[in-house]
C-alpha cells in the first residue's frame, strides 16, 4: 500500500520535490475515551533515492505533524526518472515505493 504522494519536477539542472506521507503520526501522548494511552505509532525514517543515490533522508519524531510533509531540491534528475522512496515506522513496520519525476 502506498502512503507517499510525491510531486517531483525537473528543470534547470535540478529537481524540486514535494512529498506527503499519509500517516496518523500518533504521538503516544493521547488517551482514548476509556483513559488508556494510545500507543505511539509514527514514521521514524524516510529516505529518497535517485539512481541509487540518497538525495534526501530524515529521522522523524512524533512532533512532525500528521501526514508528514517535506519539500527539498537536489541537483540533477530528469523528467521520467524514478525516485525510490522508503520509510520506517517506530513499530518496525517499513515500506518502499516509487514515484516518477515529471
Amino acid at each position, binding site marked *: 500500500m502506498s502512503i507517499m504522494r510525491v510531486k517531483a519536477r525537473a528543470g534547470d539542472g535540478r529537481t524540486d520535490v514535494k512529498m506527503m506521507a499519509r500517516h496518523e503520526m500518533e504521538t503516544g501522548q493521547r488517551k482514548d475515551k476509556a483513559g488508556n494511552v494510545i500507543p505511539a505509532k509514527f514514521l521514524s525514517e524516510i529516505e529518497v533515492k535517485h539512481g541509487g543515490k540518497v538525495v534526501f533522508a530524515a*529521522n522523524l519524531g512524533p512532533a512532525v505533524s500528521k501526514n508528514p510533509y*517535506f519539500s527539498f531540491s537536489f541537483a540533477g534528475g530528469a523528467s521520467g526518472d524514478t525516485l525510490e522512496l522508503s520509510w520506517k515506522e517506530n513499530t518496525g513496520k517499513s515500506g518502499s515505493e516509487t514515484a516518477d519525476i515529471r
Partner: protein
Amino acid sequence: MSMNRRSVVKAVAAGGALMGLSVLMPRAAMAAWTKAAFEASEQSAAIKALYGEDSATESPEVILDAPDIAENGAVVPVSVSTTLPNVESMSIFIENNPSPLAVQFMIPEGTEADVSTRVRMGKTTNVTAVVKADGVLHRATKEVKVTIGGCGG
C-alpha cells in the same frame, strides 16, 4: 572493576577501531534514528544526544522560517535553509514540547540545504534550527506563539 594495563590497552584499541570506522563512513551517510535524542525531554540534552555536544552558536547564515503566531499548533510550517557550505545535517527543536527534537534532515552532497516541513507545537515556545556544516554546529532560534496547542488530546 580492576583496570590493569592490559584491559586499558584493549579498551583504547577498541575505541580507536570504532573511531576509525566512523571516519571511514561517507560524510552524509544515513544517520540512524537516535533514540536518546528523540526521547530526551530537555533541549540541551537532545542536542547533546544527537550531536555529541551542545556547542551551537547563533549564526545569521542559518535561516529559520516559521510563523510569528501559529493558530493551530498541530500544523506549524517550518523551513530551514543555510548558505553555509558542506552541510551534513539540519534539525528542528521545539523547546517546550515533551520531546524537543522534532526532525533531523541529512543533507547529502548535491541536495540543497533548504528543507520545509510541518511540526506540532504544544504551546508557545522557541523553535531552534541546528545546522551541522563542516563539522561545526550553528543555530537560529525564533519564538512562535501558539493559539491552540497541537500535542495533547
